[in-house]
């Protein structure tokens, strides 16, 4: 299993032109094997730039990225190697599908790794299962399927490489509530069964509260909060300053507290809120 460490990561776009812009600066983070981390932040806060450093698609203009203690940018071979261990699913990944059939598209990654046909088949079935792609779709063209199904296929395509770290950039963007719920459940199961580290970029604080073991909040290219949901939601001002909102339940708890009702902050899930209200009312939950 893989551990990722970033040291003082900095990235400047268009250095030396009038369009120069520092996207991230001073980002030092450590992701332990098997963690489920949500990366949150306003549009343009540098999250997407940051994750592209983790599988060597972007090279930092300063600082280093270490995978299991070794600099991933040390050679061309190490960069390619990193991309096998650290899988990255881009935003709206359904636009990257190109093969004639779903099966072939999911197999693209494993095939690039030079695996045997039997191994490829096994991985395709496994990844399809994790991502919730039914076998009956395998021989259809990915282009004729619905948006949600396409997205699952694209995610399966990355899972099929069996990365030890899986990064997803807003995997639920544009999905209906049920679809995004199912996808999040699939991702959780995937992590439980494979033990992979999961990094999810998301605006949804509800999802973060429900699924994250840890939340990292970006603001203007820097990390402004990093901790468990309880720790992060204990700083509502910082969360708002980063352009985000609290989960609705935490917001309710905050309002109740402002009204003088002693509710333990931060009640970031329904269960916690219910518990807190009952305690405040002197009832047994």
């Amino acid at each position, binding site marked *: 299993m893989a551990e990722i460490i970033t040291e003082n990561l900095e990235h400047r776009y268009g250095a030396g032109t009038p369009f120069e812009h520092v996207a991230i600066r001073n980002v030092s983070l450590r992701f332990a094997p098997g963690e489920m981390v949500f990366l949150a932040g306003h549009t343009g806060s540098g999250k997407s730039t940051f994750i592209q450093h983790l599988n060597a698609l972007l090279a930092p203009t300063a600082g280093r990225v270490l995978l299991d203690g070794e600099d991933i940018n040390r050679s061309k071979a190490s960069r*390619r190697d990193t*991309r096998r261990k650290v899988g990255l699913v*881009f935003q709206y990944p359904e636009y990257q599908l190109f093969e004639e059939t779903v099966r072939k598209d999911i197999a693209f990654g494993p095939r*690039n790794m030079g695996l045997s046909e039997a191994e490829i088949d096994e991985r395709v079935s496994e990844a399809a299962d994790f991502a919730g792609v039914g076998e009956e779709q395998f021989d259809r063209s990915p282009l004729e399927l619905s948006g949600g199904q396409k997205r699952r296929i694209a995610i399966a395509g990355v899972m099929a490489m069996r990365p030890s770290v899986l990064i997803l950039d807003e995997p639920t963007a544009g999905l209906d509530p049920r679809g995004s719920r199912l996808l999040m459940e699939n991702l959780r199961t995937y992590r439980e069964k494979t033990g992979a580290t999961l990094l999810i970029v998301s605006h949804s604080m509800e999802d973060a509260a429900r699924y994250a073991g840890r939340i990292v909040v970006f603001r203007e290219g820097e990390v402004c909060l990093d901790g468990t949901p309880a720790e992060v939601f204990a700083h509502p001002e910082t969360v708002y300053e980063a352009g985000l909102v609290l989960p609705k339940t935490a917001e309710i708890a905050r309002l109740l507290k402002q009204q003088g009702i002693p509710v333990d902050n931060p009640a970031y899930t329904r269960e916690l809120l219910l518990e807190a209200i009952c305690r405040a009312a002197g009832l047994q939950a």
Partner: protein
Amino acid sequence: MLKDITIGQYFPGDSILHRLDPRAKLIAVFLYIVALFVNSSWLANAVMLILTIILMAVSGIPPRHILRGLRPMLFIILLTGILNLFFTKGTPVLPGWIITWEGISQTIKMMLRITMLIIGTFLLTYTTSPMQITDGLEYLLSPLKRLHVPVHELTLIMSMALRFIPTLIEETDKIMSAQKSRGADFETGGLVQRAKALIPVLVPLFVSSFRRADELAVAMESRCYHGGEGRTRMHELVYTRRDIVAICLAVALLGLLIILR
């Protein structure tokens, strides 16, 4: 990365060249190019060179930036130079040599001329936004409407094409990154292998281009776009004194160079 390609890309600024009317600039660049091609004497070349340097200085664009834009054209410049060097007839430099004195002077002039040609057109695109250029073109070509040339439609196509170049570059970049994450390799292998490696990029790119075109058409129709007939503009182009001065200077320059050649 593809994003770093900035050949001729508009470079915002507030120089006199930026503020000139696009029509004046288009006419001036046209005359500049004609002047480059009618001249053949050293004196005329020197005048053009000085003029080009003055224009570069006035534009306020860092010379380094302009020179960097020249780099992709270096091959064409060198090839033209070499061809001229070896295939111009005249007095050999040394008895029996293929290289002639005329060849050497022709080579220098040709390379100079092409370089100035590129810099001149770059100065136009660096100091004029694509919208302004197409607007200017539409005005300048509007007499052709009488001959039933669809000028408005042509310039609309042009401005859309220009508008979508950065979008497509960004999209290509994104798809390439996504496929690289899935182990695609665009950098190694022979020509055939590399061409094949582009399929996973081109298919999604075509699919999304068609989708985008469709969406754009719907967006335009839902805002009642119906072609050029009776269409007014948000920014009317107006000639000012400096535009007239610029055009007069360009005409005078062309006249001068015809005399000097």
